[in-house]
């Protein structure tokens, strides 16, 4: 029996129960994730993690008032030992991973709705190619110094991803001429432009000498989540910039799933909704890829699970995607850390692919296909 349906195929209204279960699961996994050691394989006790994080909060609060915890911070931190740094590090890693999972799942849901296709992926408009082009331009411009310029790295990644999106939209608009601009024009143009830009970037990568290639490889090294302050600040800004508008538009966003003439006759300009959705979705996808690595599969698979639990209506899907997206990526991150593949564990992208594979199999072999 598919999730959320009774024997007659009528959806059970179990949304609140699912939401409570998900919240519980998120809290449990987050707590577990905080306990994972960084310096060695294994776990800290939850009590130690709590004390370390409490100390961290105390130090930062007393910093504002020049209180005792701030003045004696070195001694206090030394007293807690390496566990303090591990707990703080895990807080950042888990937080960034969870937020990236949320953004990727929302991006996937947006693209699948706008393209009215459950297999649509947010990378379809070429943001991945844009990010790669940004890294190459930066490596060619700054050489080895690139590795020590995190702010510029993110600026280049976001700028090139958004430029790519603008280029695809602009060319698609021009190519459609006076015809009605359709999302299918957009897809074809995105495929062509991505191929061209991808070809040019491949040419540069092929012609790079070894030192440049090494810089690029280090830049693209996405085994570990980025927790530099500038990364956290940028991720927070992009999250606020994308999630808040999407939260506010979560009801009107349903209009993009229906016939555009019909939606327009309901008094909404679906072109505006689609344009906003594609820009928000591309930004979310860029953030996920830039701050967390090649984990795009989350954007494809989480909306399936979310629809199975909460139905197709965007308001329920919004919360479902947030929680399930964060949960899945955090789970994959923790699994990746424990697989003895290398010093840093397994690439998270590989774990994501393996973890999401059963869901794909369930979707393909499932009796009921409409909940896709």
């Amino acid at each position, binding site marked *: 029996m598919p999730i959320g349906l009774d024997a007659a195929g009528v959806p059970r209204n179990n949304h609140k129960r699912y939401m409570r279960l998900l919240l519980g699961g998120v809290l449990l996994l987050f707590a577990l994730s905080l306990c994972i050691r960084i310096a060695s394989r294994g776990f800290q006790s939850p009590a130690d993690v709590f004390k370390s994080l409490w100390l961290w909060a105390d130090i930062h609060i007393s910093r504002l008032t020049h209180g005792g915890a701030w003045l004696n911070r070195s001694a206090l931190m030394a007293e807690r030992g390496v566990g303090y740094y591990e707990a703080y590090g895990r807080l950042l890693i888990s937080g960034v991973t969870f937020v990236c999972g949320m953004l990727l799942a929302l991006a996937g849901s947006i693209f699948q709705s706008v393209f009215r296709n459950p297999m649509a992926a947010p990378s379809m408009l070429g943001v991945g190619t844009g990010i790669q082009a940004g890294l190459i331009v930066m490596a060619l411009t700054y050489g080895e110094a690139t590795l020590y310029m995190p702010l510029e790295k993110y600026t280049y990644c976001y700028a090139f991803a958004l430029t790519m999106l603008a280029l695809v939209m602009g060319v698609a608009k021009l190519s459609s001429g006076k015809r009605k601009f359709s999302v299918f024009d957009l897809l074809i143009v995105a495929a062509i432009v991505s191929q061209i830009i991808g070809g040019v970037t491949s040419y540069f990568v092929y012609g790079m000498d070894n030192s440049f290639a090494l810089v690029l490889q280090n830049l693209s090294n996405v085994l570990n989540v980025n927790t530099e302050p500038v990364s956290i600040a940028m991720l927070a800004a992009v999250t606020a910039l994308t999630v808040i508008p999407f939260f506010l538009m979560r009801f009107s966003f349903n209009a993009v799933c229906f016939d555009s003439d019909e939606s*327009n006759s309901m008094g909404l300009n679906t072109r505006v909704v689609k344009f906003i959705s594609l820009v928000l979705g591309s930004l979310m996808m860029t953030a996920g890829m830039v701050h967390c690595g090649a984990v795009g599969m989350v954007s494809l698979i989480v909306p399936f699970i979310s629809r199975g639990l909460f139905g197709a209506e965007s308001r329920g899907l919004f919360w479902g995607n947030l929680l399930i997206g964060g949960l899945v990526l955090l789970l994959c991150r923790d699994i990746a850390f424990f697989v003895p593949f290398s010093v840093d564990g397994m690439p998270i992208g590989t774990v994501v692919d393996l973890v999401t594979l059963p869901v794909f199999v369930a979707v393909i072999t499932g009796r009921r296909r409409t909940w896709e």
Partner: protein
Amino acid sequence: MKLEIRNAACGYGKVKVLENISFGVSTGEICCLLGPNGVGKTTLFKTLLKLLPPLAGEVRIDGQNIARWTARKLARYTAYVSQFHVPPFPYIVEDVVLLGRLNSVGYFGQPKQHDYDIRDKALADMGIEHLRRRVYTDISGGERQLVMIARALAQEPQMLVLDEPTASLDYGNMVRVISQVKALTTKGYGVIMTTHSPDQTFMTDAKVVLLMKNAPAICGGAADVVTKKNLKDAYGVDVNVVEFADANGRIARVCAPTL
């Protein structure tokens, strides 16, 4: 409310599909647009709904030209149900109907209790309350059509514009949909619909606009417009219009093609 189209030419860009179209529909009336495939019924609909600009003439609602109206203002008067409306995702019926409130709720709003009440009334008006928790993509074509009309009613319009509401429905579903559409006029709604079945103009006692290729449109009552000669001119086939007394003793008419 009265919706009028005056001396309008409709089409895409510079290509005129229809010319010199004039007719009016008031609330409480049904107007059927008849005509062969490709004659421009959907183009006329899109012009009425301001999805296409008229190439000549004007569309008026209560005497006001709608050319400068916003989509939001127009949506308070008219609601459109298209021919093809299978969403790619399994929406629940009550959620589909609630989308009729998009116009009132706006881009950044969320539905309130008032909107849910209107949705419930629309479901009740169409007699589909039992379907409310069903998955829209799982129900039959006729039920989907009723759901979409309920969605249009939730918009609280005065005029419904239905593009072939009985297309690809079986006979039973066709009769159910047409009887619900007819019932809407008694509740004060006006209906403009396209159809490929001239019989439906008799069933609904409608005003008829018969569109023809290379000939001016003919407007009038069903009995006056849907005649053997006009059907021959419009469709190029021989169709007899047969009169008989129904179970209530009233004169009824059906079309009987000669094969």
